[in-house]
Structures are given as structure tokens and as C-alpha cells.
């Protein structure tokens, strides 16, 4: 288990270092994720400990959002001033994103399937 936790932290650390040193716009943990996927593909299998540690983290992912979201109390003023533009933007953009993503995926998947058949 220690090894699995170390793997996760080491990937994140490597990601942070690359992100800082090379001034990449991608956050360190995201680079860490890409690094871990690459390592796993290279090794070709997933260790049981790593699977357990990642399973635990992903299962409780929403708990980890809580401390940051409690920050809403500091932003009361901003929300009172801008609830309308921000709320409208979220509603319009979320509906649009769902629609565009779903339709593009389905349309391209049909083209690909047709190409394979003919």
C-alpha cells in the first residue's frame, strides 16, 4: 500500500516539477495522471495495491471537494452581485455542451461505423 501511495504522490510531484520548470499551462496533477497512464501502458498491468488505493480515492472523490466548496462563504458578495450573469451562463453553457458533445460523438461514431461496413 505504501508503494501505491508513493507512486501516486511521485507522479503528482513529477507533474508539478514539469509544470513549474517548463511553464506548461497544464496543472501538475493532470501531468501526473498522464504520466501514470503512460507508466501503466508501458508495464501493461495494474498492481492490486495501486488499484485499491485509486479505487478508494475515486470512490470518495466528492468528499475532497467539500473544503474548497465551503469557500462559497467568502464569495457571498460576488454571488450577490453576479448571480444572474453567472447563473445564466452556467444553464446555457451546460445545456449547449451536453447537446454539442452528444450529437458530435453520435454523428462521428455513425460515420466511422458506415465506413467500416462499406
Amino acid at each position: 500500500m505504501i508503494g501505491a501511495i508513493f507512486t501516486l504522490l511521485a507522479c503528482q510531484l513529477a507533474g508539478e516539477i514539469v509544470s513549474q520548470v517548463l511553464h506548461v499551462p497544464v496543472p501538475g496533477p493532470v501531468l501526473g495522471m498522464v504520466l501514470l497512464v503512460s507508466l501503466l501502458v508501458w508495464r501493461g498491468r495494474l498492481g492490486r495495491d495501486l488499484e485499491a488505493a485509486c479505487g478508494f480515492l475515486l470512490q470518495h472523490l466528492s468528499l475532497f471537494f467539500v473544503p474548497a466548496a465551503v469557500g462559497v462563504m467568502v464569495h457571498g458578495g460576488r454571488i450577490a452581485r453576479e448571480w444572474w450573469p453567472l447563473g445564466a451562463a452556467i444553464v446555457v453553457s451546460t445545456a449547449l455542451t451536453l447537446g454539442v458533445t452528444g450529437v458530435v460523438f453520435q454523428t462521428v461514431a455513425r460515420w466511422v461505423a458506415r465506413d467500416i461496413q462499406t
Partner: protein
Amino acid sequence: MTLGGHSALAGLWVYLHAQPLFWLSATLAAYGCGAALHERAGRSPAVNAVAVAVGLLVALLLGTGTSYATYFEGAQFVHFLLGPATVALAVPMFRHRHVVARAWLPLLAAVLAGCVTAAASAMAVAWALGADWQSVLSLAPKSVTTPIAMGISERIGGVPSFTAVLVMVTGILGAIIARPVLDALGVRDWRARGFAAGLAAHGLGTARAFQVDQLAGTFAGIAVGLNGIATSVLVPLLVEVVGR
């Protein structure tokens, strides 16, 4: 006697409320309440465990006159785990690598279209309706999973903790409206439905997709990872192009 008991209690509170242990425990307890309510409500996306926990904690902090900084000293231990949890997203991506490899073209097209739509439409609407620039920047990564969204927000000059709130609202809304929107547009492919839910509404959309269909849930999880990468690269570029 009563007065003595009272002041001892007050003394205990003064001691406890400055301890990280107290606010760490409170965070877990509040989340436990939220998770129990979510179960009780038949796992409805409208009763969100995080929203409930945040409501309880904010009420407690305001009620006791505790600052967010004091709270965060305890809660930071939970907050820290967001980083390793983001790295852990590698596991579902690795596990589904064959499915990803087979559907790479629709995945790539959908992630690019969705990522740009999510950021550009949110920024355009908020800006047109008069939100200030810092709020517009905080909103840009709203469809990405929180740890990634906060990282992007920090990079482009938004307010990370405000982004966390906007991401939460987006996730709750997206999980509720995914079905009616996709039904109305005739999107019936489970892979496409799941991918759209995960891309637009990150982890909450993914949890919702898994309730409906396993294949949809798998593609939603893939969307969270891919959109995290795409948005980290594209949103800073978009901001550079639009921003003055």
C-alpha cells in the same frame, strides 16, 4: 456553579474551535450527513452530498463566527487528497484503454467540440450579461473536475475557490438536465450520452451516467479525464486570444 460549568464549556469551545482536528471531523461528519440524505432521496441528482455538506458547514461557521481560514486549517488535509485523486483518474483510463482505442475518432471529435463549447459559451454569456472579468475567468473551466478546474483557474487569473463553487453548481445542474437534453436531440448511443454527461458535468455527471447504464458510465469517466487534459491546454490559449 452553573456559571462555572458554562465558562468551562466556553473555554473548551475556544480551545477546540481553533484545533484542526475539530474542523476535519466536522467536514467528515457533514459529508456523512449529505451522503445519507442522498441515499434517502433515492440517489436523486438534485440532493447532492457535497451541496448538503457545504450548507451545513457554512451554517456552522457563520453561526459560530469562525473564519474560513480557521476552518481550512483543519479541512486542508481532506483538500490535499484532490491532487492524488486526480492522478488516480489514470486507473479508469488505463482499464478502458481498448474501448478508447476503438472509438478514438468520435472521442477526439467530441472532446474538442465539447471542451471549446463549454468554455467559450460560458465565458461569452457571462461577459455579455455583465459579469466582471475575474468571474468570467473563474467560470471558464466550470465543466472540468474540481481539482483540475481549480488548477486551471489559478493559472489563468481566476479565483480557485470560487471556481470550485461554480463547478459544483454545473455538476448538479448537468446531472439533472442531461437526460431531457439528450432525449430532445435524439442522442441514443449510450457511449455518446455518457460521454456528454461526463464532459459537461464531470464527476457528478459520471455518477449519474453509471446509475443509468454501465457503458454510459464508462464513457463518462473517460470524458472527465480527456476533458481535463483538453481544457488545461485549450482554455489558457482561449483566454490569451480573447483577453485584450
